[in-house]
């Protein structure tokens, strides 16, 4: 039944987008974190999307987060000798989180999430219509 597959497809999209939103939230929350568990400054987290087969058809596919990557761009250095994490020259490594980029990412993730919710709602109303057939 292909209409029921839409629930799986849209559900996978919602899960993936909320994981992306989670990464964005973590990046924004840690935009100023100079120390993580391994002693270095926080690096921005990125999620990678991959298609995944749903049901038995190859034509339609869902989406999943295949892995969470760390942004390898260089850390920002700011001069602040009074900071406890400052090096010998007085520079502190700040996270490589770009807050503007994260906000854009957040809006995109939230819109995509809404699109998936809508497609699930449409599939639901189609199924309900089908159940009233012949009445």
């Amino acid at each position, binding site marked *: *039944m*292909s*209409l029921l*597959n*839409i629930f799986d*497809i*849209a559900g*996978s*999209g919602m899960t*993936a*987008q909320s994981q*992306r939103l989670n990464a964005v939230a973590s990046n924004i929350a840690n935009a100023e974190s100079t120390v993580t568990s391994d002693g270095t400054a926080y690096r921005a987290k990125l999620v*990678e*999307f*991959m*298609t995944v087969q*749903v049901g038995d*058809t*190859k*034509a*339609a*596919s*869902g*989406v999943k987060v295949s892995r969470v990557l760390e942004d390898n761009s260089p850390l920002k250095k700011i001069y602040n000798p009074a900071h406890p994490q400052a090096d010998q020259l007085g520079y502190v490594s700040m996270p490589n989180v770009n807050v503007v980029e994260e906000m854009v990412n957040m809006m*995109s*993730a939230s819109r*995509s999430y809404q*699109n*998936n919710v*809508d*497609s699930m709602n*449409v*599939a639901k*109303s*189609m199924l309900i*219509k*089908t159940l009233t*057939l*012949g009445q």
Partner: protein
Amino acid sequence: MTVKLDSSLGFYENALRLTSKRQEVLASNIANSDTPNYKARDFDFKTAMMNAMNASSMPTAVEMTQINPLHLDAGSFSAGKYTVLRKSKQNSQDGNTVDIDVERAAFTENALRYESAISFENSEIKNLTMVLQG
């Protein structure tokens, strides 16, 4: 007069089955609107519908059970056979060809087609019951 139930309701059956398949393909485009290198797909509804109608109008068309996955499908339609790649109007850098506005429009249109097919089938059923009850 022989009322051919299958010929009067079979059209709607095929239409509903194919529109729900197309809806699935469009839902997967929406879900993958951010997946790198994903190519937007669509369903060749016209060809699929014509083939389905030809298959069901043949007098020898019988339901066959598939006992081995390697056997060919008789008469049934797999969505994969009719999927076509959609051309993107604006290319994106990550190789994704999903235009979300196009997909949403097609999704809504297809849902309406499905619901109208249901309405037509409902009135067909009402007509038939009226004839049966006299």
